[in-house]
């Protein structure tokens, strides 16, 4: 029995060529959704088939790959995608953000600032920001073409009318380079400011919906808002209970069934590095007692 022989990074060269052409077009038109012939991947839709195809197409033998899922390097989705590329491409992998050249991510942007030598690949479930307001694809395409984006603000209006503030907390719509309105994938709106003027190239792949889009480095990305209800990033008003960080995005972890909870950094690599540097949580007098 011989093991199946794969091309480097699973996809055949013709497919990679097709995807790279889509990526180049996406970079040339920031925020525009480029259709591509998405392939069947050996994992179910919703597990990042779009991101995996983009990563496979840009990966070279010298690259170092980091895969995160909700900021974490060790959840099922991140582990299985990392293993997939170790097996099919044999590339180096890392959990350290600054050591990676390609970072595939689901729903987060790393806390550590990215550099010009890095590419961030997002997994996107629904690339069309107007989808839930206008179900017709023909119509949303025309709206993008003519930049008729009034409808996007109707959604924000509804938020304020119902909740008194813009209640959209993730997949918060942005305008890229003053032209296309784009869904940044379900990242928390805390991460939205990091989209703008990023030194790293940002690529977005949606496998099921067969779309690729991109934000080139140093592109202005603006979160949509109203004059009297400006965009505000949200984070829990607490410090990480492991590393004491007060400026990182926090996950709320339920610790028991008596209402006990703790806040920890969602970016595990960031948190570990801080703890290695000697940062620790300093209990605050006013903070609620846990457990």
């Amino acid at each position, binding site marked *: 029995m011989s093991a199946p022989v794969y091309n480097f990074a699973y996809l055949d060269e013709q497919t990679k060529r097709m995807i790279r052409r889509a990526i180049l077009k996406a970079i040339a038109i920031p925020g525009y959704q480029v259709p591509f012939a998405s392939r069947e991947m050996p994992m179910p839709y919703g597990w990042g088939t779009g991101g995996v195809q983009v990563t496979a197409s840009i990966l070279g033998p010298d690259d170092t790959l980091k895969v995160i899922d909700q900021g974490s390097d060790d959840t099922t989705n991140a582990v299985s995608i990392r293993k997939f590329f170790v097996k099919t491409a044999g590339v180096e992998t890392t959990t350290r953000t600054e050591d990676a050249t390609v970072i595939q991510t689901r729903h987060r942007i790393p806390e550590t600032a990215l550099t010009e030598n890095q590419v961030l690949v997002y997994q996107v479930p629904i690339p069309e920001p107007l989808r839930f307001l206008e179900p017709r694809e023909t119509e949303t395409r025309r709206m993008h073409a003519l930049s008729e984006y009034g409808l996007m603000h109707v959604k924000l209006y509804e938020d304020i009318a119902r909740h008194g503030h813009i209640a959209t907390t993730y997949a918060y719509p942005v305008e890229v380079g003053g032209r296309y309105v784009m869904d940044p994938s379900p990242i928390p709106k805390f991460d939205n400011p990091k989209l703008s003027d990023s030194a790293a190239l940002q690529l977005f792949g949606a496998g099921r919906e067969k779309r690729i889009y991109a934000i080139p480095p140093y592109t202005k990305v603006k979160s949509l808002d109203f004059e009297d*209800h400006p965009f505000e990033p949200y984070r829990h008003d607490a410090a990480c209970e492991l590393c004491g960080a007060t400026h990182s995005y926090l996950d709320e972890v339920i610790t028991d069934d008596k209402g006990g909870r703790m806040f920890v950094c969602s970016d595990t690599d960031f948190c570990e590095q801080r703890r290695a540097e000697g940062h620790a949580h300093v209990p605050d007098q006013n903070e609620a007692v846990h457990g």
Partner: protein
Amino acid sequence: MISFEDDKPLLIAEGLTKYYGRQLGCRDASFELYEGEVMAVVGESGSGKSTLLQMLSTQIEPSAGRILYRMRDGGLQSLWDMSEPERRFLLRTDWGYVHQDPQHGLRMGVSAGGNVGERLMAIGQRNYAGIRATASDWLGRVEIPEDRIDDTPRTYSGGMRQRLQIARNLVTAPRLIFMDEPTGGLDVSVQARLLDLLRRIVSEMRIAAIIVTHDLAVARLLSNRIMVMKGGEVIEAGLTDQVLDDPHQPYTQLLVSSILPV
């Protein structure tokens, strides 16, 4: 009565013709519409009145003929020579379109305020309080209680939905509004209230309107002029009272005599 001191037509239709394949939809319709004037298009089902309305509102392209529209700067422009973005911009600022079925003209899952505010946001208004104040003002003008502003049209009655649709269209102060059977599907007392409202708003804001209806009573109440269509052609046109009181064509006579005297 409205006086027409400004004698430049707002809309000029010249020889509008539409064939669906070999099937005639509407042939050689020509007319002029002036600012603040209300014109009714009447006729039985299949007479081509909806085809005519769709051509005028640029939803379908005529097979022959052209439509000229006077822009706000005073210049006449041929609608089908304009680019699509320009046409669509016109459609959502300077024009309104009231559908027979409010479900087609409204976003049923969006609150009344959002429905009215959509056009404002589409033309670039980004002040929440301002948009909401305008929406609330318009709800008042179409007699919808202001505390219903955050309810979706799903919770509205048929008459309220139709009034909301009117508010949604009028919020950008259009100069021309198309209405396709605006009172269809409403009961008689609700119809009467809607007609009163339409008549008041149209005359207050001096909006020109083209109303397609099969109901001669609606035409008589709302319109200054009337066009009678049959088999895809305009068979009679003139002042509403004149045509209805002294119809010349046999078909028009039949139409007039077939309504019950009130």
